[in-house]
């Protein structure tokens, strides 16, 4: 057996000598023999190529049983059976006569012209045989011719032509079984091969994707480093610009005219704006690189919201927008960095004020929510009760954010449309910093619509466990 190159899935692993017993279930052969026997009253035997019996369904004929009791006949019978077992027909079938006048028909079982084994039909007696032949009568002196006369006609009667038809049927049935088996085998081989192939292709793609992700991560890291370096380098000269303009305003370089003082005031004001922008860039890059340290302590969220409202109240008044907090004292305690939490709420509230027209309102509120509300309290018995979270809401009556944009507003430098940059100012950094700060606290942020108009930013934070209070 030899094969060149990789083995094809369409070929069996080893052909060698193909054997019937390997291809067909023994039980299936027995069922086939049984049904043939029932249909034609004929004994059926299946042999492997080497002559060993695989399956049979046999009715012992009364004549044969009687002959077994007579030594000479028994020997003759054994010889006949031995020949029939080993007989390999040249063509499809070969008949073999028995000394009793009956006949066996040996059938080659083939598939794709390979001889796999044999089936033996019979004994059967041709309808033309009317009396026992001399070969039976003379087989042994002890055989009473009257017995032979009486028992011989009890054999199944069958013409050769009919036996050949039955043989063809046996061959066809077996071939169909073999064909279906072969087909199923090929199909499964192809399935396995094509699944393996698809897996290989997928693995390939996965690897390429993983490589691409690695490359992008590296680029992202480089970008953050660059951002951090540049921001830092910008801050140093800017501090001098602000410092010197301050000194000028204070008259340390002599008196200034009102006009000069105004100009320098503008320089200083713009310098401060620039500095705060640079600070946010630094914050962002620190958050991205994970180097921002959180100084966590247990705090009352109402204290923070009060502070935010009082800080921004002047701005709100100037814009003609109502600002209030409805967070009651003692509602919830958080384990958080108060400075950063304040920054989150300041950013969100400032943002809300910025986009709310005169006459509108900005409202801070808080609610406690049980997590996994759909669980129906399952797992309580295990002490795995749903955790409580605090949801802080900053609701405005501004222009609102279209649903499709709600995820993207947290990307750095993103604004819903660039025209709003000119109208409302801002760098587009605030919300991305907010999101990162909230995430660093183990929380999440989402946007809901306010009715009839406006936006609600919902910050969800884990509450502090009772033991730490």
């Amino acid at each position, binding site marked *: 057996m030899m*094969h060149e*190159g990789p083995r094809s*899935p369409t*070929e069996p692993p080893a*052909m060698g*000598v193909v054997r019937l017993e390997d291809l067909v279930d023994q039980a299936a052969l027995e069922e086939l023999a049984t049904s043939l026997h029932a249909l034609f009253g004929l004994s059926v035997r299946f042999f492997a190529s080497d002559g060993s019996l695989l399956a049979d369904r046999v009715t012992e004929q009364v004549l044969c049983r009687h002959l077994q009791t007579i030594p000479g006949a028994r020997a003759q019978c054994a010889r006949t059976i031995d020949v029939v077992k080993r007989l390999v027909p040249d063509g499809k079938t070969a008949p073999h006569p028995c000394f009793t006048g009956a006949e066996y028909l040996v059938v080659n079982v083939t598939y794709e012209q390979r001889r796999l084994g044999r089936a033996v039909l019979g004994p059967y007696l041709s309808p033309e045989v009317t009396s026992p032949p001399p070969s039976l009568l003379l087989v042994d002196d002890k055989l009473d011719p009257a017995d032979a006369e009486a028992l011989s006609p009890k054999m199944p009667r069958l013409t050769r032509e009919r036996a050949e038809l039955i043989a063809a049927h046996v061959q066809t049935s077996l071939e169909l079984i073999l*064909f279906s088996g072969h087909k199923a085998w090929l199909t499964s081989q192809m399935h396995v091969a094509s699944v393996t192939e*698809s897996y290989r292709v997928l693995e390939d793609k996965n690897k390429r994707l993983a490589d691409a992700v690695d490359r992008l991560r590296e680029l992202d890291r480089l970008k953050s480093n660059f951002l951090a370096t540049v921001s830092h380098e910008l801050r140093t000269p800017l501090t001098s610009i602000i410092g010197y303009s301050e000194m000028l305003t204070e008259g340390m370089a002599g008196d200034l005219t009102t006009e000069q003082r105004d100009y320098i005031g503008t320089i200083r004001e713009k310098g401060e704006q620039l500095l705060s922008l640079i600070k946010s860039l630094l914050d962002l890059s620190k958050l991205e690189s994970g180097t921002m340290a959180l100084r966590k302590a247990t705090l009352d969220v109402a204290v923070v919201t009060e502070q935010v409202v009082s800080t921004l109240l002047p701005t709100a008044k100037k814009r003609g927008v109502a600002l209030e907090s409805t967070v009651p004292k003692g509602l919830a305690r958080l384990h958080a960095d108060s400075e950063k939490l304040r920054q989150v709420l300041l950013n969100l509230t400032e943002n809300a004020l910025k986009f709310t027209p005169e006459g509108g309102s900005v409202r801070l509120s808080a609610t406690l929510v049980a997590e996994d509300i759909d669980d129906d309290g399952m797992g309580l018995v295990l002490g795995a009760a749903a955790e409580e979270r605090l949801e802080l809401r900053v609701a405005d009556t501004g222009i609102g954010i279209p649903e499709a944009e709600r995820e993207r507003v947290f990307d750095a430098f993103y604004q819903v449309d660039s025209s709003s940059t000119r109208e409302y100012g801002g760098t587009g950094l605030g919300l991305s910093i907010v999101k990162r700060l909230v995430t660093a606290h183990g929380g999440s942020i989402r946007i809901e619509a306010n009715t009839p108009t406006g936006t609600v930013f919902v910050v969800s934070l884990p509450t502090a466990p009772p033991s730490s209070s």
Partner: protein
Amino acid sequence: MQIDFSAREITVKLVYYGPALSGKTTNLQSLHDQSSAETRGRMMTLDTRDDRTLFFDMLPLTFTTEGGFAVRVKLFTVPGQVIHESTRRLVLSGADGVAFIADSRSAETQNNAAAFRDLKANLKANNYELRALPLAIQFNKRDLPDIRTDAELAAQAARGKEPVFRATAVKHEGVVDTFLGLLHLTLRSLDKQNDLRGKFGFERRAFLSQVAARFGDVTIEQHLATALTAPGAELSLTEDV
């Protein structure tokens, strides 16, 4: 090829390749119908509801020489539809020869070329050397209008390396020619590599004549003479060892 020394037989795998709907399955069907009953096996079609050929068709043919040496030929078709790329690659693996079934219509020229490039790519993926692979090309559907003319094909065959056959598979025309042409090329190549004559006393010429006889009265020489080839590359049965 698989050689089984104990059973004195070889199994040869021939693959019918080509664009979708060029008539690969029709070729196999026609070979099945034209071959004698003792030669052909049951044709196997693995198919699905909405596709003409999901996996492949397989037709086994068995030829036995007087010396009791058996050549089993397994003919496979590949699915032509573009999406079955991986099935084509799998069926192609282990092929001893390839018949490329092209559509004669001028409008199909692009599809023929694309399928041939696909064949080349898949042969490469199976580590075949295209130059060493026995290949026969068949231009099928000669009965349709707007086809590439005989003169065009002859001119192209004269420049190519492989024999070109013309066929109308639905009318059983040219199918046996193509098969025998490919079988001839394949056995010549296998004989060279494995010395079948030395090992089994296998006489190619006599064998091919016997095979031709299984398909009717036309001799192997007449079958092979239908091929369009480059000058000097005619299919010849004189031993060229």
